[in-house]
């Protein structure tokens, strides 16, 4: 049996999930210029939100997705106003420590509220699948991929055609010029950070029925998201998509075609990332950043 079509399908679906995981982080950095180390915890909160709505009220994660996105936006906006805004002009190390600390605090609150027990939502499509020829497609993965495509398309459309989206791009490109053009930079920062967190929460909703939910699930996802964002080019949405594709294809094909490949997959993917960054330090589609 030829495994290449199956490997290709698996890699594309995984890339969708990775894109969704990283795109919010990329937006946040592109506009606010702060790497949000609490992004993994946003994913975790989204997963718990979807899980509890599913378990307690029988609400399907896809039904709860829009509401949780709004909640994620509000939480992000409040985090920006309450914490991030205070370190905008502080040294990078302060910004890193703040977001890292926020992440740890959220993680520990989650442990207190929900214990460290492993959980997972179980809608029917999470474990059903169909065959296209010899290629098996899991509904849950396909749903995640579809959500990722819709979310990224909506994000790109918003950035390209809406007034606030254009203002956001202006701030991302040149903060001083945007200010001179009358853009309220602080408002755009809060908006972008809110959208970034909303995307993190959306990722959590999607993984709630694919992966195991624990208060600690965010950090490994954050590491992967950071790798994708750096690989694609910090702050570049198309670059993030390409970074996710590179990582997903490298991991999947290593898993299929190397002995004990699943064990080596992540290591090989990160070696590949290091190689690309040596050749092109600013990432695949990244631009030089003025420091």
């Amino acid at each position, binding site marked *: *049996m030829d*495994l290449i079509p*199956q*490997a290709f399908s*698996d890699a594309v679906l*995984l890339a969708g*999930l990775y894109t969704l995981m990283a795109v919010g982080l990329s937006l946040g950095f592109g506009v606010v210029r702060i790497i949000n180390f609490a992004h993994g915890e946003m994913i975790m909160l989204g997963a718990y939100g979807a899980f509890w709505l599913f378990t307690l009220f029988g609400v399907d994660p896809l039904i709860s997705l829009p509401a949780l996105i709004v909640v994620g936006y509000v939480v992000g906006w409040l985090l920006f106003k309450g914490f991030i805004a205070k370190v905008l002009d502080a040294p990078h190390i302060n910004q890193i420590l703040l977001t890292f600390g926020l992440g740890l605090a959220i993680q520990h609150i989650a*442990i207190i509220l929900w*214990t*460290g*027990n*492993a*959980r*997972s939502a*179980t809608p029917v499509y*999470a*474990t*059903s*699948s169909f*065959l296209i020829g010899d290629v*098996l497609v*899991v*509904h*849950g993965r396909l749903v995640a991929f579809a959500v990722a495509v819709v979310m990224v398309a909506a994000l790109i459309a918003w950035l390209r055609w809406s007034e606030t989206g254009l203002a956001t791009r202006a701030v991302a490109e040149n903060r001083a010029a945007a200010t001179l053009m009358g853009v309220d930079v602080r408002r755009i920062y809060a908006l972008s950070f809110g959208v970034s967190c909303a995307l993190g929460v959306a990722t959590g909703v999607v*993984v709630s029925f*694919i*992966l*195991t*939910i*624990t208060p*600690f699930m965010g950090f*490994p996802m954050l590491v992967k998201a950071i790798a994708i964002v750096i690989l694609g080019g910090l702050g570049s949405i198309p670059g993030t998509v390409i970074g996710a594709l590179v990582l997903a294809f490298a*991991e*999947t094909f290593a*898993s*299929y075609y190397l002995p*004990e*490949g*699943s*064990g080596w*997959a*992540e290591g090989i993917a990160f070696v590949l990332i290091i190689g690309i960054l040596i050749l092109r330090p600013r990432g695949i589609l990244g631009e030089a950043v003025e420091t």
Partner: protein
Amino acid sequence: MRYPSNLLFLAGLAVALGAAPASAQEPLKIGAPVSTSGRYVAYGAQAKNGIETAVEVWKKVRGDKVAGRPIEVLFRDTQSNNAITVSLMNAFIQTDKVNIIIGPDGSNVAAAAVPPWKKLDDRPIWFMPGGSSDVIEKEVGPDPYFFHTYAWSYYYHENNVNALKALGTKKKVALLYSDGAYGRAHIEDARKYVKEAGFDLVADELVREGSADYGPTLAKIRVRRPDILYVLVQTNDAIQLTKQIHAARLNIPYLVGTAQTQLREWQEATGESQVCWTGVTTWVPGLNYPADKKEPKLFPSAADWEKMWFEKYKTSPDFLEVGYYATTILALLAVEATQSTDRERLKEWLEKQDYQTPLGDSRFKKSRVALHQAFGTMVVFQRQKQPDGSITSVLVYPEQVATGKLKPCTQ
């Protein structure tokens, strides 16, 4: 011969003090390293429940003291962290001067606890009702003061394979294990017993701990068409792996797990995907062990104990809860019987005792390396769907306790 009266008084006082129970006013200190946060939190919560319930039952049956001493349990959180566990063990022995140690739970932290305990000449008696990794057994060695009160990892595979032998030995087996401590600790013995039983090992696949996608590994296993998929991963990975195996339509008749399938969190998180999986455990609700004849109130029948637990916690006990309960009661009985916390006397008593507990026979025997091993009797069960739609554990091995037959999956 005449002796000065004050010398006689001092001699009398010394004799009186020596005859009294050791340190009559000092509490019996039990050091309990439990993982109440971090990745082993589910185990830690069970451990704490088990010890607390044992002390409560003891006080109800025998009063507030043991050997004339109040009972003090020092619960300390390992945070599921090896370095913290090392510090806790040092503090228990050197600062708190505990008389007995019970715990810790997960195999990783349990292994980390060995060196700080082992290095001290005056180490107290140590009960371990948690860790199963045989790495721990090798590290501890034939130590006279170590009492393992749970099954070693190789017991899992011996029992699993014995249960599978009933299917005939011409079966093809695929092994799937994680690259973490759990998978690495189990894989050698799983291979050994599978091969010794005459099964045909058609796949031996490693997966990354915490991986988001097991699809590639499952696709490779599918083409080998095994009859039995034998999985060695811990709970977090097991949940998403179980769901992915269900979605992958592998059409493998027998899905074999180890410890994870008995955990409530695995059962709740996997939904319908859990049907057909087998697990191996020292305890499962419905065991029919009788009450102990000497201590029926401390060690009631398994059914009565389960009932008592359900009334208290409104849920069935998990395997560590009953293990920590039986171990703690055993420790208290040892102190009471010997009226001492002297480790030599405790050791001698423990080596001779014989109770029928809710977890089975309490006698200690030698295992591969360790001198004292109890509660290692394991049963194999299968998660089977019942006519009313519920999914329950049906005992399939050994025959004496079996409540049903091992059934192939019909995915």
